[in-house]
């Protein structure tokens, strides 16, 4: 057996600074689908390490009249990806004379992400909107294009804090006595605010503001909700 090589002191090793193409700029994205609406939200803090680069850099982008995307992770990749999607969607509009449906956008995003399988976009995306039947829909992704349609999802730095909360409050996985009435759009909006203010309390990368997009049959409505700045 080979004796283990003893490492030198952990405290101060000379650091080899090497170019890394990735950065983690933090942030949390969240989407909830109702019967005829969808709410998609993300905080607007752009951070790097322990510093806040910007307090008001949006992570949510409106792609069509009934589709939005929210992405956290590496800002450079997020900007590029969202720009590319907007371009493709515009081209689709010109070629087909109609808007892309939300599930089609969702599929396209997955293809786009997988296209860079071996040099991934370091982004954690959520697509939310209304499908062809006017039903709320949410799509959740990993960084390389595995995706799934869900009723609710969360991604980014606050993911581990929020996901169990949603399992409990939206999917009622804690009980057999599920309420028979679904949450209304306004109640869902309030839930989103509650969730983000709680996540902002405990996750250092979540804060400043939340950009909330409410999508229903009348179109898309935007609302900004303040969080703590510390």
């Amino acid at each position, binding site marked *: 057996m080979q004796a283990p090589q003893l490492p030198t002191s952990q405290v101060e090793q000379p650091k080899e600074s090497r170019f890394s193409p990735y950065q983690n700029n933090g942030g949390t994205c969240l989407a909830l689908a109702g019967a005829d609406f969808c709410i998609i939200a993300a905080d607007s803090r752009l951070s790097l390490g322990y510093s806040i*680069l*910007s307090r008001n850099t949006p992570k949510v982008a409106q792609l069509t009249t009934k589709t939005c995307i929210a992405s956290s992770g590496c800002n450079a*990749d997020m*900007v590029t990806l969202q720009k590319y999607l907007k371009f493709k969607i515009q081209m689709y509009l010109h070629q087909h004379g109609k808007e892309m449906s939300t599930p089609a956008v969702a599929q396209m995003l997955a293809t786009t992400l997988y296209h860079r399988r071996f040099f991934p976009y370091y982004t954690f995306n959520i697509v939310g909107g209304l499908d062809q039947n006017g039903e709320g829909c949410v799509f959740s992704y990993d960084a390389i294009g595995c995706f799934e349609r869900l009723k609710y999802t969360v991604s980014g730095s606050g993911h581990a804090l929020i996901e169990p909360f949603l399992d409990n409050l939206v999917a009622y996985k804690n009980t057999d006595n599920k309420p028979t009435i679904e949450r209304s759009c306004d109640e869902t909006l309030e839930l989103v605010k509650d969730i983000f203010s709680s996540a902002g309390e405990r996750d250092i990368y979540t804060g400043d503001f939340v950009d909330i997009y409410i999508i229903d049959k009348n179109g898309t409505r935007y609302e900004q909700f303040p969080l703590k700045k510390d």
Partner: protein
Amino acid sequence: MKTKPVAEPSTRTQQPIVTGTGVLGIKYNGGVMLACDTLGSYGSLARFRTVKRLEKVGDFTVVGASGDLSDFQKISSMLREMSTSDSAYDDGCNMTPRDIHQYLGRVMYNRRNKFDPLWNELVVAGFRDGKPFLGAVDLIGTMYEDDIIATSFGNYVCLPLMRKAGTNLSKEEAKQVMENCLRVLYYRNTKSSTKIQIATVSAEGVEIGEPFEISTYWGYSAFQHTEYHGKRL
């Protein structure tokens, strides 16, 4: 000789060589201001004392850079070429500050994809159609717009002071804030100097000032005796 493993990505600029430190950008009432010192460091050596790190692009924009200065000079010549051809078209359609910001973002991102980054953090300041613009781009293509921006060490030292000062400032007040921030930066950053340069962009156009010296203060009596084993004052 040791050969590199196959999986190693190919890299070009592995580290910056001659570097500039923090660039500060702030919006004020009626314009945008950029400020930085003029030191070109070669590692820890203060190699070049008067390097201009603010570049005018077109009629409405200034770009400031920290990081590798040779890369910035390359970027500057790219931008000059672009604005020359932009004005040569003479179509009455010129690049806005936001266009330049977006363009730089794409250039930086494309170079990072080739693992051959331009080792800079850039700040773009502009004023067009009565609206101020301030944006940042870095070597991997991170892009954002904000009212207050500081790069590299300025991020830790100057940004807190600038955020405290806010953006409701006159031009003169903004200049005071910038000078004060660069002074504090000089106190705490080994790679900055007291020779600074300030640029403003407003409805009157771009104005890049000449480099000048800022004052410092080291006269605290408590600074004169700081050996803790020694005698007290």
